[in-house]
């Protein structure tokens, strides 16, 4: 493989505590190396150099995303970008085509992306779409929080069986981590109910969200998985829900991470913006970002991603079926719902976060407050819960808001009800401006550590994968807010595993994307084997053989992370 030397850029690499020093980055055989002999030289003078960024939570592949694509043809209107050299046609805004997903992440400097909710029964579909998403390495989180096996084992306090079932499911679905969505609530939705508090009982199973969350944290650490239990808590999106969120976060207390990957958290709470609301109804809706962030700041065994509202027309989609039904009743726009037998469900509704509506403005403020009040950027990550709070293609705009108080002031001024937004939040009084080192922590080093992938990704240390992004942005110069957004909208150069993907803003290759999954070895467990067999015979409409994700068709280039959880 060829050698490359990215010369004289301003390097931001929290993995090595490099804060914008002018330095060279050498690449050989897919890895970062100390030095190279006859490299192709890339002049990065006056530019910003970072590792490839990591996405911890986005909905980019699978049946739910595809429902969105199918029932929102209007999302593609006027968005097509025709075929070019090394580059297929792109289309879509909030629910882009698989090809656009790959290209658009690459253009932003992202090289690894996690699909946040894989219904196990449709794992094959998820993998087929990931296969068709070029360039970026991807993994997917199977959803466990409403799964009948999990609910039954946890009800009987059978930790070893939960762990064995999780290991089995990760292996057959080629999944990466334990995802929990509205624990118990989605199952309750099948009975026309929901779980809005952590102590609300799940019908039939007679278990509470609290027990599901705690049980899955224990199972996760019993297995020693690279990532932690990854939760979308109960009561999402409702005024006054911050107390439910605090109750959820408190469940991490007393648990300690046990793994060989350098991960420190036991709970990752996703899109916490949607869970940090005060008030009792929409009329007195207000931000409760501060109590949430205060709690997270003090507890090192918790990480969060934000789920910034980007003020766009977008498509909401979640395994939180009851929430989507609630949403369509609010905005009267079209609604799709799907049940996934024994496992989960999903709903999809278009949504417009309008700067003219004060609730949208407050949601925008809540997201930014969370990031700006956060004391440890290594534990707080940039996401939009794509496409729920906005499309991931808006990350450069979020970076602009985080780095420039002036940009935030301009947006506040543009809100129709700006006084209401200012009164119901503290965004106007925050003068913190994040620097590029902190942005690199929130998008590179932090997510890599949180996912247990810090040895491969998120840094520029010799030995790490050569995922490198070069932005045409000189951190020594004064910038207008818009220039920040423009610079981070399109990398000038991008390397993925040492392969040049974008050179001088043009795609030169689609690389060789990998699918990451976790292969956890556990003790033989005849009971779980028997239970799985029985459920397939009794309830599933497919056979076990037609369930498993196997073969090159689904995963042409797998990358298994092995965990030994035999006890």
């Amino acid at each position, binding site marked *: 493989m060829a050698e490359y030397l990215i010369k004289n850029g301003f390097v931001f690499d929290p993995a090595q505590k490099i804060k914008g020093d002018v330095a060279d980055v050498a690449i050989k055989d897919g890895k970062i190396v100390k030095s190279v002999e006859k490299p192709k030289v890339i002049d990065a003078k006056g530019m910003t150099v970072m590792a490839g960024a990591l996405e911890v939570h986005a909905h980019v592949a699978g049946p739910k995303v595809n429902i969105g694509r199918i*029932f929102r043809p*209007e999302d593609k*209107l006027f968005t097509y970008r*025709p075929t070019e050299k090394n580059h297929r046609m792109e289309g879509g805004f909030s629910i882009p085509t698989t090809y656009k997903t790959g290209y658009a992440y690459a253009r932003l400097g992202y090289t690894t992306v996690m699909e946040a909710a894989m219904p196990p029964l449709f794992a094959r579909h998820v993998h087929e779409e990931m296969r068709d998403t070029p360039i970026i390495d991807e993994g997917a989180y199977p959803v466990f929080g409403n799964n009948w096996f999990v609910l039954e084992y946890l009800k009987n306090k059978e930790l070893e069986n939960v762990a064995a079932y999780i290991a089995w499911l990760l292996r057959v679905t080629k999944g990466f981590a334990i995802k929990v969505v509205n624990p118990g609530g989605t199952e309750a939705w099948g009975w026309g109910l929901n779980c809005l508090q952590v102590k609300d009982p799940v019908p039939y199973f007679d278990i509470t969200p609290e027990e599901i969350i705690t049980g899955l944290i224990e199972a996760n650490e019993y297995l020693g998985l690279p990532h932690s239990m990854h939760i979308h808590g109960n009561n999402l999106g409702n005024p006054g829900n911050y107390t439910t969120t605090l109750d959820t976060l408190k469940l991490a207390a007393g648990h300690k991470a046990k793994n060989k990957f350098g991960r420190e958290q036991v709970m990752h709470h996703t899109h916490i913006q949607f869970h940090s609301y005060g008030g009792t109804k929409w009329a007195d809706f207000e931000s409760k970002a501060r109590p949430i962030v205060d709690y997270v700041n003090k507890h090192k065994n918790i990480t969060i991603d934000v789920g910034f509202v980007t003020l766009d027309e977008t498509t909401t989609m979640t395994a939180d079926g009851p929430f989507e039904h609630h949403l369509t009743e609010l905005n*009267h726009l*079209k609604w799709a719902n799907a049940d996934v037998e024994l496992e989960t469900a999903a709903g999809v509704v278009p949504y417009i976060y309008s700067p003219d509506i004060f609730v949208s403005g407050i949601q925008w403020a809540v997201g930014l407050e969370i990031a700006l009040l956060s004391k440890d950027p290594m534990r707080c990550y940039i996401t939009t819960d794509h496409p729920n709070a906005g499309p991931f293609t808006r990350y450069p705009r979020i970076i602009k808001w985080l780095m420039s108080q002036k940009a935030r002031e301009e947006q506040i001024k543009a809100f129709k009800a700006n006084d209401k937004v200012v009164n119901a939040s503290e965004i106007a009084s925050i003068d913190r401006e994040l620097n590029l080192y902190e942005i690199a922590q929130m998008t590179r080093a932090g997510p890599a550590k949180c996912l247990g992938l810090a040895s491969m990704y998120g840094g520029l240390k010799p030995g790490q994968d050569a995922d490198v992004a070069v932005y045409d942005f000189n951190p020594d110069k004064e910038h207008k807010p818009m220039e920040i957004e423009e610079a981070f909208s399109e990398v000038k150069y991008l390397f993925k595993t040492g392969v040049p993907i974008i050179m001088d803003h043009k795609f030169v290759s689609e690389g060789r994307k990998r699918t990451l999954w976790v292969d956890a070895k556990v003790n033989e467990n005849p009971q779980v084997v028997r239970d799985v067999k029985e459920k397939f015979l009794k309830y599933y409409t497919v056979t076990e053989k037609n369930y498993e994700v196997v073969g090159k068709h689904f995963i042409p280039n797998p990358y298994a992370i092995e965990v030994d959880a035999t006890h």
Partner: protein
Amino acid sequence: MNTVTLTPKAKPDLYLEVDNITPDRFAGKTNEEIAALHLYEGSTQHALGKFFDVAGSSGPTAAETKIVIKGDASRLKYIGMKMTAGEIVIEGNADMYVGAWMRGGKIQAKGNVEAFAGTGMKGGEIQIDGNAGNYLGSAYRGDWRGMAGGTIRVKGNAGSDTGYFMNGGTIIIGGNVDVHVATHAEGNGKIIIKGNAKSKVGGQMVGGEIYIFGDLEVPMPTFEYRKDVELEVDGTKAKFALFEGDTAERHPKRKGETIYGKIYMKY
């Protein structure tokens, strides 16, 4: 007003996407520049000049520019898309999306137009001397934002799904309409049908008005008779029976009064 005349040279193999044929794009350009504007034939980009002779001259602004398509336009999609001012005259028949997302100015189609004319239209005027296809003055596939303003006048008949998701503006049809009129309509759009209508008129209608001068073959059971009213509609004074619905739909309240979709049937 200056006039640019486009004369089709040969019938293309595939349908052409000609959203660049608007007074906005032509204004201030020489004929060579106009001929160099692009269009799509399938996935292939061509210069407009490959398919049209360009004569006459454009005005300095869209408002001062008139375009005449002299000949068959039945393989041209998106004529006048998003235009804001000026005029287009289509001498033959035209394909889909005539005047889609139009904001101002005037289009006259002397023949028939295919489906989706005036999709998402916000302002201006479309006059169709022949018949209109399906989805006249509607929303784009999947969208809930249909025609919001402007006027469409059809001398002949219209196809099915006229005014689908209509939110405003006026559609006047001289002849008959096929099934589904003003489905999902909301706001204050107005559809006047001088001829007959078939069925599913006003299905899932939240707001807006439909006037039918002729017969309605199968009325919706979810519309209720309210009263008789004397009205002048597009120059015709007559007595109408007012029906309100669709009662199976949600209906917003304004000043304590529930807003319904209205169907006026001429006696």
